[in-house]
């Protein structure tokens, strides 16, 4: 996306067509991401169905407050991302940059909290293969925790990619490599991805931390 606003890509006849194609492409891509995480959610739900007791005890080991904090961080980052898109459309270059950096910072905060949580999990012996022996005997608990690590890990990778993307974009907007409002579509597309990663967490959090939580 290094071209300036004036360049029309090869196959397109006009800019409206190009814009619509970009938007559609982004949504189809998000659809593929949804299917990939869908497979993971399916696995997690199946574990909950076949081992309700084990999954519940595993859930109780997870810290719903740290997870909740992370949810709030990501939701806030979605707000700042929305602001960035609005600012970009209005051509407010420095505000766009600022909001994008705020989103990235919130994303990094999420990753730090997640890292701390992993550290706590490690201390409890939840991490597969390392640390203390697994603390819960009930069948399915370890299975569920393994699912927790795979799904949060994959989500964290997605978020990290998002952070890199948004930081890079913030720089590009600041340096006018991506001029606003002319190429605000780039900010918009990055925003779509960011919101989507947030949406995955919107489902991951309750499925991992809240569902069937014991008293």
């Amino acid at each position, binding site marked *: 996306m290094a071209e300036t606003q004036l360049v029309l890509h090869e196959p397109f006849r006009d800019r409206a067509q190009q814009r*619509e194609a970009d*938007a*559609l492409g982004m*949504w*189809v891509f*998000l*659809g593929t991401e*949804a*299917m990939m995480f*869908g*497979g993971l*959610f*399916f696995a997690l*739900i*199946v574990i909950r*169905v*076949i081992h309700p007791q084990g999954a519940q005890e595993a859930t109780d080991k997870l810290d*719903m407050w740290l997870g*909740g904090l992370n*949810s*709030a961080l990501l*939701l*806030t980052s*979605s*707000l700042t*991302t*929305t*602001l960035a898109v*609005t*600012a970009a459309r*209005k051509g*407010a270059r420095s*505000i766009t940059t600022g*909001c994008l950096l705020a989103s990235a910072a919130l994303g990094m905060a999420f990753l730090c909290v997640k890292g701390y949580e992993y550290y706590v999990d490690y201390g409890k012996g939840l991490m597969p293969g390392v640390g203390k022996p697994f603390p819960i005997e009930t069948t399915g608990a370890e299975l569920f925790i393994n699912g927790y690590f795979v799904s949060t890990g994959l989500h964290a990778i997605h978020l990290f990619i998002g952070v890199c993307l948004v930081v890079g974009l913030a720089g590009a907007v600041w340096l006018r490599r991506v001029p606003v409002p002319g190429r605000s579509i780039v900010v918009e597309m990055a*925003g*779509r991805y960011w*919101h*989507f990663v*947030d*949406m995955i967490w*919107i*489902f991951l*959090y*309750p*499925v991992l*931390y*809240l*569902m*069937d*939580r014991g*008293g």
Partner: protein
Amino acid sequence: MAKVIRTGDLIVFAVLIGLLALNMAQARWLDLGVVSRVVTIALAAGQALVLLWYFLELRSATLLIRLVAAAGFFWLAVLFGLGLNDWLTR
């Protein structure tokens, strides 16, 4: 800065946070038994729909793009419905 902060966005954000708080509260303090799973997922789905509709701008998107988003959910429903059917009827 003021010109980019729209009241609508703030309300949407408040709703999202509110639903999150509600979900955490019911998980922590309410013992709804089997219903709690449905409630948990319903609240999350509510959040997701708000996010899709406003922040992901399905509100102003073309029919085609709405269809793409709906298709994702439809195919996931196929995976979950037909897949879970196995475990629930064993």
